[in-house]
């Protein structure tokens, strides 16, 4: 990250440092992601958000499971834990409880968080553990070569649904809201500003927050489903996405084809005592905490 548009003259000037240089691990770049992949944008938004919020970087911890998305933990320059497939949420739960001062975020893929790790997502949200979960939904298992996953839309082609998927996918914001997440939002990687604002909000909010990022995976999903390369998929997002904070849950279903809209927005923003707050309340009442 060393080239930057210099403004008025329209020349490209090479500068020594990019404003996000210190937030990304320079010695680990370039990243492993494919051209056109949405993960770079998702990570940039996150890097910006963690810097903007009023929480020291040294108190922020980033965790992930396994997958292309899971690699984000290795690129962001905060304490980071790249755990096992699907297990970042329970790992984060232990970490947060052991040191409540930390601002803990799990960044992972749709397969990681909702197939193999689905049960942990349910329980962390139910307990209202004070962690943030950010899911990059690219509608497939990118890392293993584009297989069907729990968010693959009906009819979509993947390497294991050659005749079109005949499973109903999860509606993630609906799921998160139903099990008690205190903040739920969804954006595409095109909605950088909104996404970053949502991330800032989530980072500062107490309780279990959830952000879904709709992201192009040209390699595993875009090409087989005629969404094209990354840029074309972004064009598709621009044409089809609708910001609707008060959308009904049905409207949040994703089809990723034809004229069906991609509804994005901030859907839930509420308060509920967190796991640690309730624990403290109970123990105090029994005289076990001063």
């Amino acid at each position, binding site marked *: 990250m060393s080239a930057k548009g210099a403004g008025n003259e329209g020349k490209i000037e090479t500068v020594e440092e990019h404003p996000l240089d210190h937030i990304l691990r320079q010695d680990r770049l370039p990243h492993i992601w494919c051209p056109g992949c949405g993960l770079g944008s998702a990570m940039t938004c996150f890097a910006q958000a963690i810097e903007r919020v009023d929480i020291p970087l040294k108190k922020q911890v980033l965790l992930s499971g396994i997958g292309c998305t899971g690699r984000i933990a290795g690129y962001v320059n905060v304490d980071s834990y790249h755990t096992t497939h699907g*297990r970042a949420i329970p790992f984060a*739960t232990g970490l947060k409880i052991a040191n409540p001062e930390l601002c803990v975020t799990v960044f992972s893929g749709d397969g990681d968080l909702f197939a193999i790790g689905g049960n942990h997502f349910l329980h962390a949200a139910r307990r209202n553990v004070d962690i943030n979960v950010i899911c990059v939904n690219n509608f497939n298992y990118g890392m293993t070569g584009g297989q069907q996953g729990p968010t693959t839309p009906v009819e979509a082609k993947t390497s294991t649904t050659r005749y079109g998927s005949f499973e109903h996918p999860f509606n993630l914001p609906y799921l998160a809201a139903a099990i008690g997440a205190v903040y739920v939002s969804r954006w595409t990687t095109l909605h950088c500003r909104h996404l970053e604002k949502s991330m800032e909000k989530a980072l500062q909010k107490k309780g279990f927050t959830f952000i879904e990022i709709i992201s192009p995976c040209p390699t595993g999903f875009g090409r087989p489903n005629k969404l094209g390369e990354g840029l074309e998929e972004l064009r598709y997002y621009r044409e089809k996405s609708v910001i609707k904070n008060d959308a009904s849950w049905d409207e949040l279903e994703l089809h990723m084809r034809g004229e069906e809209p991609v509804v994005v927005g901030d859907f839930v923003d509420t308060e509920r005592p967190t796991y640690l707050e309730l624990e403290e309340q109970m123990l105090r009442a029994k005289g*076990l905490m001063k």
Partner: protein
Amino acid sequence: MKAVLTGSHFMLGDIACAEGALAAGCKFFGGYPITPATETAERMALRLPQVGGHYIQMEDEIGSLAAVLGASCAGVKSMTATSGPGFSLMQENIGLGIVTETPCVIVNVQRGGPSTGLPTLAGQADMMQAKWGSHGDYEAIAYVPNSCQEMFDFTIKAFNTAEKYRQPVFVMADEIIGHMTERVVIPGPKKIKLVSRKRPKRKKNYLPFKPDKDLIPPMALAGEGYGIHVTGLTHDARGYPVIDEETQHEMVTRLIEKIRRHAPKIWEFEEVMTEDADIVVVSYGAASRSAGRAVNIARKEGIKAGLMRLITVWPFPEKRIKELAESAKAFVVPEINMGQISREVERFASGRVLSVTHAGGGMLSPEAVLQKIKEVAK
């Protein structure tokens, strides 16, 4: 309430285990109820809030161990307790704990298996799983208590060893010991030796996985400002993933050597009448109580039998077995499984090794051991 309940108690094995953990400074328990280990979890749920710690009941054993590792990375001594089915579910994250060098204690109060097996009855058939259960090469450390007192003592040892070598350590108890009630003497807190993980001395040039001469790297915690990256992928001294043969060789060799090189300091065993023994009985856990009795009876009947009771089964005290094999005519290995550690004894004993097996569900009898001793004595 005190963390250390100094005094003389009449205590259930599982509870003594929990008290040992508290005396060792454990402040986090993540678990999922399972017979015959539930009483440890229940005791921790009662006691941890009294000493400023946290008990969390996770959604399964996979999540339990993940939470325990997370808590340990935040700097808190952490543990879980389970039995066969839960131990099976923990295997993947045991590998994560090994490769990320995250200290913690995993108690397995063994019951009869395979599968759901015998929830309420004893077994010792997870001994090899403790060594080989997670994929890939690694060295395990496992303590095996044979009394309620040892449930207390060895849980402390397990914490100390985990902290010292930065890896998950097992307490491989069994239903008989876990569910038995005996006298347990808890010393004063000052009498209990505690070990804490090595910590980095300065931030500059700190490489999270660069070992000291003893092959153990100092451990930085989450939130201290080191900006560490910790991954289950093969990694270099910086903790960065490197997917190649050389890094794999370096990392795996060090992790294994870290334990093998210190094995003579880690392994522990107890010997009774082995000096002149023709027949050495090697046993551990509940089975070793019957083994001890059989050896005593054999001696009374004029047979030169001795007992080597394993306190650590892993690392396996191979050196001592080799020494004993120089003079012993045969080894007899009673265990409540179909012959697991007997094969390990065979690897290092040149002479005859006979196993006394029991499929699980009860105590292996002293008679069965005695009979085998008499057979080989002929």
